[in-house]
Structures are given as C-alpha cells and as structure tokens.
C-alpha cells in the first residue's frame, strides 16, 4: 500500500540538486529545497505542480506539506500554470517616478490581460512584482525570464515581446 510513486525528476534536475546538497551539512539536505524548486520550475515552463513538489519532497526526504509551505510562501515560485514567459515590471519608487505605471498599462493593453494573468496562448504571464528589482538607475525596467530590460519605452516593449516565441 505504498503511495503512488512521485513523478521522477529529470537527470539534469537531480544533478543540479545534488550539487546544491553538497553545499550544506550532510544531515540537512532539505536546505537545498529552494534551489531544487527553482530548477524544477525552470524545467517545467515556469511553474510547479503538486507532482513535482512531491518529487522534490521525496528527493530531499521532506514532508510534502513542508514543500508546499515553502512553494506557496515565496512569490518567485509559481504553484499554478502560467505563461512560459514571465514578465515582471518593477513598480517601486524609482521606476514609478520614471513612468512604470504606463509601462504596465501598455503591456496589459498589448497582451489583453491584467497583471497576474497569462495569455490564452500560454505565451506570456504578467507577474505581480512586489519587490524592487534593484535596477533603479535604469528605470523604468522589467525582467523577462530572468533577463533585465532597462530604460523602457512603449516601442521597446513591442519589439522585445514580439521577438519572444
């Protein structure tokens, strides 16, 4: 009556997690859980599923609920399916003063979705960014798939987004 075996992690993910485990004391491999979920999320088009979280839990010998707690706590971990390109527009003070609100509006209009939603074709996801992305000298700025784009204008955004598959 064993539980259904969790989904297997990819070879690459396991190697990457193993590399992180070596950084911590041998009896504390759960310390690698954040790194593990980042890898697994990246491999799964930017979001985690319950099966993947269960697999991470099994791999790191953790209770599944402990992994769910972590995944639901950190905003950089997505627990619902989202578009494959994650767009985060910084709206903190420096970017706001430099017009980030218009940037957000432009993206929302162009993609015809609100912040926090994904396009129906699964291409884009506008993430609700809560923290300053630490590129104040280049504001307004946004991050797409971990890459920074600074000193944005509406024209630049069209060009950047159109280039993405």
């Amino acid at each position, binding site marked *: 009556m064993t539980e259904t075996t969790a989904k297997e992690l990819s070879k690459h993910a396991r190697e990457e997690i193993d590399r992180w485990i070596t950084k911590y004391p041998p009896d504390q491999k759960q310390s690698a859980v954040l790194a593990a979920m980042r890898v697994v999320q990246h491999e799964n088009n930017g979001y985690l599923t*319950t099966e993947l979280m269960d697999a991470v839990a099994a791999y790191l010998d953790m*209770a599944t*609920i402990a992994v*769910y*707690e972590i995944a*639901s*706590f950190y905003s950089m971990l997505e627990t619902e399916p989202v578009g494959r390109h994650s767009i985060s527009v910084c709206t903190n003070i420096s970017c706001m003063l430099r017009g980030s609100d218009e940037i957000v509006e432009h993206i929302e209009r162009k993609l015809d979705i609100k912040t926090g939603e994904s396009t129906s074709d699964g291409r884009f996801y506008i993430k609700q960014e809560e923290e300053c992305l630490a590129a104040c000298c280049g504001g307004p700025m946004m991050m797409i798939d971990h890459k920074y784009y600074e000193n944005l204008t509406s024209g630049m955004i069209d060009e950047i987004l159109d280039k993405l598959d």
Partner: protein
Amino acid sequence: MSDDTITIEVDGKPYEAKKGQMLIEVTDANDIYVPRFCYHKNLSVAANCRMCLVEVEKAPKPLPACATPVMDGMKVSTKSAYAVEAQKSVMEFLLINHPLDCPICDQGGECELQDLAMGYGRDVSRYQEQKRVVQDKNIGPLVQTDMTRCIHCTRCVRFGEEIAGLQELGATGRGEHMLIGTYIEKSMCSELSGNIIDLCPVGALTSKPFRFSARSWEMAQYNGIAPHDAVGSNIYFHVKDDRVKRVVPAENEMINEVWISDRDRFSYEGLYSDDRLLAPMLKENGEWRQVDWQTAFQTIKERLEEIIATDGANRIGALAAPTSTCEELYLLQKLMRGLGCHNIDHRIHQVDFTDQDVAPLFPWLGMPIAELEALDAALLIGAYPRKEQPMINHRLRKAVLKGADIMLVNSVDYEFNYRTSDKLISSPGVLPAMLAAIVKVLLESDNKAVGKDVERLVNQVQVEETHRQIAGKLASAETRAVLLGNVAVAHPQFSAIRYLADMIARLTHANFGYMSGHANTAGACLVGALPHRTVAGLATNNTGLNATSMFEEQLSAYVLLNLEPELDCWDGQLALTALQAASCVIAMTPYMTTQIADYADILLPIAHYAENEGSIVNVEGVRQGFCSAVTTVGESRPAWKVLRVLGNTLNQAGFDYNTVNEITDELAGMLDDIKPGLTDGGQLPGALSIANGSLQRMTDFQMNSADSLVRRASALQQTRDVADGAVHINNESANKLGISTEQNVLVKQNGVGLQLPLLIDDRLPDNTVLIHAAHPACYALGPWFGDITLERC
C-alpha cells in the same frame, strides 16, 4: 538548593525558578495568569501569537513570556498598564479577521479566544475593512474545519510534527494569505489526529461527529477509562440528556499525558448503534420472544441444571471479552467454578496455550509506561504499537527522538511514525527462527551455559547480518527492552516466540514485556478468568478447556460475555460451528446481531462502556476504577449485576453484593500483595520451522475494528484503519500465482473457499497472505494463521 535555582520577581513577589525555564513556565507553576494562544506545555515554543506579552524591567519592549528565559533578579510585571496595553493591542489584531459567529460555533463557551476577548478585547472593533474568508477543507471524517476562525497559532501544525510524527497540516501562503491546511485535498491519517481539536484554541478545528449536538455548558463531565487497548488512557465523558456527546482526554502524565488516540475519542458513537439489545430475549421453537429478567434467569437455571445433570458441568464453556471489567470476570469465573465448570477463558486472540502453566501472572509490560521513553534500544516482536497501542507508541517515539534504536521482527513491514533501525520481515512461520538466530549471535559472544537443548535448537538456523546488528544494538544499549505485540500472541507458535524473546532479553539484560492485550487482559488473568488459574494466579487442580479447545470440543452449552465470537475469536468459523451445535447458548451482550440471533438461546442485555462500572487493569498493572457516566439503555443492566443475580438464582454462595465496590474491595484484598512478575523462561520449543515456500496466511488487527464498540462507531469506520475484507499479497507473489487486482480471487483455507478482492501490499514478505481480523466477509475462512491457497476465479 541546587546551583541552577534562581530568583525572579513577578508582580512584586519573589519566586524561585530554574535556569533555562521560560517565564511562562514559572508563572504557570505559581498560578500567575498570563494569557496565551500558541503556547502549550507539551509542544515546542512558537511565540507567534504574542498574546503572552509581559513587561520586563530594562527590556526596551514587551516580551513574550513563552519565549523569554528567566534570569536571576529579573523583574516582571504581568498586569502593569504597559503589559495590559500590549496584550490588548495583540487581542485587537487577533480579532481583526475573526468572524463574530460564536453563537453557531461549537467552540463557543469553551473558547480560549472568546474568554480572552472578554478580558482583553475592546467593546467595539475599530477595523473597517473587509475581513478575510478562508475556504474550509475536508481533512477526514473526524475533524471539522472552519478555517476562517483560525488565528494561526500553529499548535495543530506543531502537534503533527512533534507528537503525531506526521507532518500533515502546514501554514501555506504568507501575510494575509497565510492559511492552515493540507494544501491538497487529503484526509489526515494520524491515529492521534483528534487531539488537534483540543489543542485548537478557537473553533477552527472541532469534532465532526459531535458537531452542533450540544453546547459546552449543557454537558456534565464524568471520568472514564478508555477500553480499546491495554494502556487504559484516562478520559472524560461529556454527557447531555443522559447521552455521551463526546469524549476528551483526562490528564495523566504516567499513562496518556494529555493525549488520547482517535479510537478512544470517537468510539462512543458505537454506544448508540441501532442494534443495541434492549430487553432479555428467549428463543422458543426458533422464535425470539422478549421476556422479563425473572423469566430469563429461571430459564437459564432450568437449562443449565439440566445440562449439568445430563452431560456434566464440564460440558459448559464460558468465554468473556478481555474488555470486561475485573468485577464481571471475577463473578463469571466464581459462578462457573461454583457450578463445577473450569472451562473459562478470555484469551480469544490466542491459539498456542502450551506454555500457559509457566506463563507470567499476566501479560505485563515489565516496566511503567512512562519509562518506555527512557529506552535506548527496543526489539518489537510481532508488534505495531502505532495502531495497536498508540500511547505506548508515543512513548517509544519520544525515545527514538532521543536517539533510541527501535528494531522490528514481524511479518508486515509496517509504517512507523519514527525512524526504526534494523528490521526482520519474514513470513509468519519463520518468526521463531528469526529470534533463534538472534539468540545464536548472543550465545556466540556470551558463553553462558544455556544447556544443550537450546544450542541444538539455535544450531538449526543461519545467522545473517541483520541478526548480528540487532543482537549487537540490544547488547550494547544502556536501557533496553524486548516487547511482544498482538501478532506475537496470536501466532500459532506463540510459546516458542515467548521463550526465545525471553531468552534474548535475559542474554542482553533487557526488560522483557508485553504490549499486547485488550483493555483488561491483565485484570482477566488476575481475577482468574483462565482455565488453569484462579484468582491471583493460583494454580488449580482442575484445569479446564482453553478458548480454542472449548470450541473444538463442541460443548453442550456456552456462556458468552460481551463477545462476537465469529469476529473476535482466533478461529471465528470454529466458534460459530460450535455455538450453532450447542444445545444452549447464553449471551450477555450489548448488541443483537444476526449471528447472535442465529446461535444463541437466551440473550441478556448488558451495560456497555460509559454505562458500565467497575475497574480494569492496564498492561503496566495499574488498576483503574470507573463509575457509570450514563444510565444503560432499555432494560439492560451492568454485567456484574446480571452475574450476581445469576449466582443467586443458581444457589451459589457468596453472591450477595449490593454495590460494585463490594466486589472491588473483595478483589483488592486478594490482589493487593500480588507483584507482577515474569516467570522463568517458559517452555523450550521443539523444532523451528523454516520457510518452505508454501503460502501462509496471517492476520493483523485494524485499530478501528478491534472490538464490538469501535466497530459500530460510524465516523471511525470511515477512516482507513478498518478491516477491509481483502486478501493482501505482495506484487511478486501475486505475479507468481498469476492473480491480479482486476478480479476477485478464490481463497481456500481450512477446506473453505471464498471469493475475495485482492490488494497488492508490498509491505508483506513473499508467500505471505494478510487478511484483517474481524471482517464479516472473512471469518468463514477460519484460523487467523495457517496454510492458504489463492487461485484465479
């Protein structure tokens, strides 16, 4: 005065404290009230509710008493304006999102939040914004959730991690979106889950079976003893309108601390099952007729006297449930022995009685329950305490958390809620050989003179690495125990297991004991509900028939006390056949089942559980008395009263008791000097059976199918710990036999064939078939252990 004693000042008065104690422990010990939600003395400190803020001199801000270690000379104010202002502010925060639904909340009237809101809350809320709403979760049949009421104290989360040993609940999300739950839809599977109902300081987690059935102030509280395992957990019955509404734990640090198992908490539902027997009944010409007590007693007198005259008193058998009280069992054996009948037994789960004359006075743990947590190593044989004796398991778990090695010899690789070290999982026939191999290792290293016979015996077995590991860990640990469980006692070679286990204990200087048995197995042995011993374990010249031979002999009459033999006995089919063939079956029973209606001739309704009174003895040897909490249903009477009148009716001397206490006192006089001891070794087994590749059946006990009361508790019947009526076998053995779960299999045992569903169960070793005890679809197969075959239908 020891060095670690320091003095602190609280509210202007000096108090002694120990270094390292938290402030709240000192104030609690001295009856100084500090409000709190998240702090609980049996759980770790979380300090997340902030309700216990107090003023500490020289501290720049109020400090939480639960997480502030005391220091010498510390000056604390718990009721200063500064402290109260802090406490009131915290209260305002906690109430921000709490709904005002106290009138429809089961916690109302016993709610810590409600109480503290009276003391520390504002009259009017300043909060104008929208309150958050949290969706309820279905976490199983026992615990009801109303998560909007949750104040995130995390007591339930910490309980799962620290006490239950199963992290099932957690705090997901963060900030305003944080919520307590299982994240995915999932039933809690901890056998201790009901305790989170008591722990929850608000109405977020309440009892599902109890829901909306009474208000806390309408109920009266009575003491009771839980009757489902050999622990004897202390409980309270909460009673309204003469009905048990719910059961909660009563604190007893030596036995159950502050917890009880779910079985002990929710079994009360079985008291109100539809099949309660309400009046004495008599079968005449195959028709049941309700009669008055007098008629029933007279009929019993006539029938028994006739049988004694024609067949002899030794053609009567008396069998009692090991959950019966000492007083009931004492009177039963007194009555039967008075009639000249020595066929009396309660050991319904046992089949191997060969060493009964050298068996201990009663199956004793060998040590106090509380001392289990100080063990460094324990070998559990045929035991699954997690589901069989959850409170004993809790103590073992505490030992493991301190580093103890728990080692296992069993036929099922059970899932424990703690780390176990070495385990030997083998088909049931090989269990004695496994123990013999451990003995062999111990004899190699310790040249004790044990006699040629033992050496010859152990030389039959091969030693493997695991045997060495277990022997080594037991021998080198400081405090150790060898403990037998329910499967060991039910095993067909129980005497061999006992002998070898005892020898392992002797060679390693370990404590030898039993965890097994029912609520009053110990008491039953002490008061002489045995065929070979009378009160206080005195041997008798007239050894009667044991629980199995009583049925093999197909006696003329049977007297049953609170039993459903087809489900409760080791060979249910054998019991049923004998009962059906008997000319007279007298059943004292709280329930009328179709089987009882079929084989019995006279039914006497008896008080059950909370309705009953008397005393029971737990596995530690502690006798605990209890009074009835509710009146019995219908015309039923406590069994001691029934037996008393029966004794008088049958002209037996010494049955003139007026109260149950008179019997208790009489017993106390006979039992008080008895010391539970374990006798010498037992009886050397003959040959050891080695795996021969044949398919072997075994049986285990699902906690929520263990006795007649719990089998009728509807909420517990929805949990997974019930007999499933399926044939369990591991994947490899199933493949070899060419059977699959797609269709039922034909099970043949003891000349009987049944079609049963198949379940792949990889906890089992090869060639082993597990069928749960006490399932109505399976008892026709007969013995709990033995040869079995499986075929495709």
